[in-house]
């Protein structure tokens, strides 16, 4: 405990010694002493508990029942989970597709967000603002990704079909978003196009907030070029923002589905772009099998936690 004690605790004279108390007494004592912290935290935390934590716990509980909004739910234990992995072929397809989506869009969007933010960091502020706008605009502008549907439209009025027909590369227009071999790669491209989002801005803000004297000290200590500076100075000091970006990349890439539905419809042709999120929307939103949908959400939750643990492990190696 004493190792964690901050200067604040050393400054304030403690009325009683830590050694005189058991753990419970000490906790109560510390809670009383830091009551301001709880008061400051309360407005946010009450809303967070009510609209995030309670619903999440209710969903976790429902994943063990057959709740369907109409009948009184029965307790099923792990039946929903066995059904998912044993009886539901489409779920297995969804898991495979999600893994492919996530394995590509997650790391690529994460690394791209950071690299672009880092590259533009040394530009003059005005040019940096302009470049930031160009890269961030696809994410900022709401449903602008629907332009891809216009460009890749199924008839010969679509720009891509028109061009390919004109160049005699195809004979008949291709229905890009309803073709099992094109829909997935196209959705990945669109996802990457919109992927420079919050974490991109967060990286830019983080890089701007970095302490310049660190770089100068690094240069004195023998950092030779920008890549060494990146590895030994920038990345370790950016770690909090990198953790933030990692969560963003994980939730974005594993929870991917909205763009696919908007562009390719639901269900996508032959389930070629069917993700876990689609499967979940299908059971939770359309069929009202809430218990089953909750089980899907829980599986997705566990996958994301695993991915996040992995990324945290990788990030702990930074600068070594």
């Amino acid at each position, binding site marked *: 405990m004493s190792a964690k004690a901050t200067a604040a605790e050393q400054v304030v004279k403690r009325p009683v010694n830590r050694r005189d108390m058991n753990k419970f007494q000490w906790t109560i004592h510390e809670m009383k002493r830091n009551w301001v912290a709880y008061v400051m935290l309360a407005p946010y935390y009450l809303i967070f508990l009510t609209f995030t934590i309670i619903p999440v716990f209710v969903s976790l509980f429902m994943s063990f029942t057959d709740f369907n909004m109409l009948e009184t739910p029965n307790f099923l234990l792990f039946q929903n989970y066995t059904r998912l992995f044993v009886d539901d072929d489409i779920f297995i397809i969804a898991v495979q597709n999600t893994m492919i989506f996530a394995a590509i869009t997650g790391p690529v969007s994460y690394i791209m967000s950071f690299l672009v933010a880092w590259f533009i960091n040394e530009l003059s502020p005005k040019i940096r603002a302009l470049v930031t706008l160009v890269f961030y605009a696809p994410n900022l*502008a709401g449903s602008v990704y629907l332009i891809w549907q216009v460009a890749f439209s199924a008839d010969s009025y679509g720009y891509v079909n028109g061009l390919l027909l004109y160049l005699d590369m195809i004979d008949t227009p291709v229905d890009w978003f309803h073709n099992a071999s094109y829909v997935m790669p196209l959705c990945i491209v669109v996802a990457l196009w919109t992927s420079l989002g919050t974490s991109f801005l967060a990286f830019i*803000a983080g890089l701007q907030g*970095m302490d310049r004297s660190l770089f100068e000290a690094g240069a004195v200590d023998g950092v030779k070029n920008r890549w060494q500076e990146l590895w030994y100075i920038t990345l370790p000091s950016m770690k909090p923002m990198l953790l933030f970006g990692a969560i963003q990349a994980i939730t974005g890439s594993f929870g991917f589905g909205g763009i696919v539905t908007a562009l390719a419809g639901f269900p996508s042709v032959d389930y070629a772009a069917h993700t876990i999120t689609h499967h979940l929307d299908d059971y939770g939103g359309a069929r009202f099998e809430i218990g089953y949908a909750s089980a899907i*959400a829980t599986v997705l939750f566990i996958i994301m936690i695993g991915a996040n643990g992995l990324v945290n492990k990788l990030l702990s190696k930074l600068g070594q």
Partner: protein
Amino acid sequence: MAKIGKLRTRKHTVVLNRSKGGDAGIAFFLIIMGVFMFLPMLYTILQSLKPLDELWAYPPKFYVVSPTLKNFKDLFRLMNTSWVPFSRYIFNTVVISVTGTFGNLALSALAAYVLSKLHFPGKKWMFKLIVLSLMFNAVVAGIANFIIMSALGWVDTYFAVIIPAWGSTLGLYLMKQYMDSSVSDAVLESARLDGAKEVRIFWSIALPMVKPACLTLIVESFKNLWNYGSTIYIYSEELKTFNYAIGQIIAGGVVRSGAAAASTVVMMIVPIVVFVVSQSQIIETMASSGMKD
């Protein structure tokens, strides 16, 4: 102060080695990527300026031959035929976006300061819960959320959209991480020694230091709320949002493809303006205060 800032940067570029090859490579990468990012945006804008016969021309052209504002006029004409006055939808969206964003900023910043800089029992798991909850699917949690909303009597009111935005986990996580990396404990400590109260330290020391993160949160939260078009919690016509109303207009098929192209541009203008204003704020902060030490 400005002078110091400049001097420091100049020294910084002198000290650090930046190879010409690296600069060129980075510029090349940024240009290629920038073109990939920008072309679809440009196409969106050009589409909105095309008259109907050019929208449905064969072979389709990327550029526009005779640009027109007719699509925008059509869109505004269609807006006037809506069931409730169109200004009402815009008003709803503005109320939701502005109150939601500022509440989100205020509560997240305060909570982030506490979770990042104060020490008290329960802090660790309180933060852990927030990070974990980010990874749980919102659709499934939405069902329990709806029950809670109806119990509170908030269904079909602004509250159903605004209050959950105030408790946004993403905003809090962003602010907390930025406080961790950019607010130095030493400065807060000396303020405490001077006898300043925590709320005051937060307001006059920590908050100005995290201005870039605040602006990022504003842009992000505004973007999400501005594009809010769901009718799950709000079903009265006079409480529905701009995005929803636009969606209804452009659902009219081929004849409205011009108005649809215009609507995408109209929808994206406001978030882009908010972003540009916030960027100019960041530039100003950097220029006036120099860098922190």
